[in-house]
């Protein structure tokens, strides 16, 4: 049997943390891009595209993320795509994030006074210009705190990708635990690593919230 010292455990966990960070970033960026598209549908003038976006959001917010990951992992191969845990993890979390981000940003768009649209129109801007120059910058700015808050949720959610076989922090810790039989120490360290990643972001979101409330 291989002997693990405390520092071996820490080193292996930190190496695996790279994948957790990378996955979180990829899913956040991907989720932001897809979420923008969903947002466009959600605030569109056409009833059916609004309905489609609402249904999309309700679907992802009404089912467990674990199921969404399983459906990615087992569904894409049925379409003839060869799929690695990494691909399923990134795609699954991207769609999951897109639904939440679209809904957060929609609340920002809704919070803007009607006059902002009217003012844009009276300046002769067409719909896309209004969105790009007037509506979206303000909507993003007032929803910065919940967006950062969701990033924390997303980082925590990457833990679930260990179940479909992606080698991130939790899966590595399972393997280490099976070799060392020290679950208290191993999972305690994993919790600490997650905490060190998430807590500063939580504090940042809180300070954004306070700043927004003071305005």
């Amino acid at each position, binding site marked *: 049997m291989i002997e693990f010292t405390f520092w071996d455990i820490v080193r292996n966990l930190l190496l695996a943390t790279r994948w957790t960070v990378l996955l979180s970033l990829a899913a956040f960026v991907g989720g932001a891009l897809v979420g923008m598209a969903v947002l466009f549908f959600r605030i569109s003038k056409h009833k059916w595209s609004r309905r489609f976006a609402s249904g999309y959001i309700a679907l992802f917010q009404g089912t467990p993320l*674990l199921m969404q990951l399983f459906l990615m992992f087992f569904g894409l191969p049925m379409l003839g795509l060869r799929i690695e845990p990494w691909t399923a993890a990134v795609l699954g979390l991207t769609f999951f994030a897109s639904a939440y981000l679209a809904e957060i940003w929609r609340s920002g768009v809704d919070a803007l006074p009607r006059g902002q649209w009217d003012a844009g129109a009276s300046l002769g801007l067409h719909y896309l210009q209004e969105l790009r120059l007037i509506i979206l910058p303000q909507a993003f700015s007032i929803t910065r705190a919940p967006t950062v808050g969701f990033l924390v949720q997303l980082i925590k959610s990457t833990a679930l990708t260990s179940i479909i076989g992606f080698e991130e922090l939790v899966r590595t810790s399972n393997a280490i635990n099976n070799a060392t039989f020290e*679950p208290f120490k191993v999972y305690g360290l994993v919790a600490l690593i*997650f905490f060190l990643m998430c807590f500063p972001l939580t504090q940042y979101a809180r300070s954004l919230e306070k700043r927004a409330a003071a305005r």
Partner: protein
Amino acid sequence: MAFAWLPGALGDIAHGAATTILLIAVTTLAGTLLSILGAAGRRNGPVLLRRAIGWYVEVMRNTPFLVQLFFIFFGLPSLGIRLDPILAAMLAMTLNMAAYTIEIVGAGLDAVPGGQTEAALALGLRPRQVFIKIVLPQALKIIYPALTSQIVIMMLESAVVSQIAVRELTYEADMLQARTFRSFETYFVVTLVYLAMSMALRRLLVTGGRRALGAGVS
């Protein structure tokens, strides 16, 4: 896509769904109770207790539920506390939910005007009676929608406890797909069951809340 396996699997799916419902029912009751105590302790308790509750909330909110579950199920036995999978799941879910609902309940307590407490004290109620009979019902009414969302989120999160072999809905799905080799179809059906359950749960909580707490609950 093939669903020939489905009729024979309905019993297992129903059994799994029943366990999920049991888990969320216990978690809702225990979690709400714990968060009322936690929120009250955070406001009126001794300084050390206040600080401890504050840190508890931060630690639980900034670590993944899956890791908390593993810590409780695999880690606690090394301290001599050995739990059944289902008890470990209930404990982990309750502790996790309480961390979120302590903040929610606390916001509700803060939102009840101070005059309510003063008026009740002036009527000669003891402080405990004031809390239970006057402040708490009003606070719960204010925060009920947020509490409802949190309960639904917790129900969806409970899929994870399949990982410590609690025989709930996701676990039954895992077993079914291993037997039928129809992974996608199995998870597809079970996802729809979860969707129906989360919609039904939300509706149940809204109508139940309206009846118990009076109008004004959306």
